[in-house]
Structure formats: C-alpha cells, structure tokens
C-alpha cells in the first residue's frame, strides 16, 4: 500500500518525531509506514487521518 505521509508531513513542516508524538507511536513506526515497510492497522490509520484532517483514502493509496 502506498501513502502520502512524507508529502503531507513536509507540507506541515513536521518531523517524523512530531508526527509520531501526535499519533502516539514511535518515530520508527512513522518511518516504517512512510517507507512502505509496514502497513498500519485500521485504528492507527484513522488516527493518522485525524491528525491530518483528511479522509483515509487521501493518505493511503492502493498499489
């Protein structure tokens, strides 16, 4: 699954740690999601969507 996390984060000038703190996970998790090494669970995907105030489908994209 692809995602736009890195772009969305850059638009807001957030570091990986900023985003990690906002969604309550480790920076490693944010890095793993951004680089496509790990697909988040649905609850975590919803938390990410809430932080960016966007629908999930505008953040996570089909392969």
């Amino acid at each position: 699954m692809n995602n736009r996390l890195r772009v969305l984060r850059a638009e807001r000038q957030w570091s990986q740690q900023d985003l990690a703190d906002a969604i309550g996970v480790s920076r490693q998790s944010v890095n793993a999601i951004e680089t496509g090494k790990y697909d988040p669970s649905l609850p975590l995907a919803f938390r990410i969507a809430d932080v960016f105030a966007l629908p999930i489908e505008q953040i996570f994209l089909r392969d």
Partner: protein
Amino acid sequence: MSALPRSGAMRRYLVRLFVLMGAYIAILIGAKLAFPHVPPRGVLAYALALAPALPLIGVFWAVFRLLVEERDEYLRLLLVRQTLFATAFCLVVMTVWEWLQNFDLVPPGNGGFGTAFWWFVGLGLGGLFNKLTIGDAGDCS
C-alpha cells in the same frame, strides 16, 4: 537515535530483565557453592537445584509480558518476529543436538548450554534478522 528506549513497556522490560538476571547470578553462585560444600538432601536439594531456573523462567515471562504491554504496533511486530525466530532457532538447535546424541555422535549432556541459552541466543539473532530483513531491530536499536 537515543540509547534509552522511548517505549514505557521496553523500559519496564529492561528493569525486570536487570533484576531477574541479577537474581539469577546470585542464586546460581549460591547453588554452585552450596552443593559441593554443604550438600543439601531430599526436598531441599530439589529446591536448590531448581532455584536458578526460577529467574530464567522470569525472563521468559518478562519477554512475553513485553509483547502484551507494548502499545506500539510496529515495535510489537518486530518483537513477535524476534521471539518467533528465537523459538524456531532454539527448536532446531536442540533437535539437531538430541539426534546427534541419539546416535552417540556427540557427548551426553549439554554442558550447561541448554534450551534457555539457545533461546536467548536466538533472541539476539532474531534482532539481527529483523535488522537485515526490515532494516529495523526494534526499540533498543
């Protein structure tokens, strides 16, 4: 990259590990000294022989408790992979060793390097396996 883990679950695990390994060393030295010098008898002998195993069992508990307490799902995934690797590695080593013993190709016994030892070696190798395959060894990397 900080040397201190950010996860509260990992910090609790490290404290538990430190306490249990300290207890293990103290009890092991006590048992090793007691048996040759003041050999215990009967139930006391069994109790003293089993005493060093208790902190090791505690370490198993601490590792699996970490799996329960870790709230970060990605770090938990790494831990699950690491413990599965350790279990598979330990089973393979002990199975191979036992079959070599069955045909008298290696000496009896294990020289103290039994199941727990190989599982802990496997845990370390499991972290390396994660690093090589996912690029991330976990919270202490």
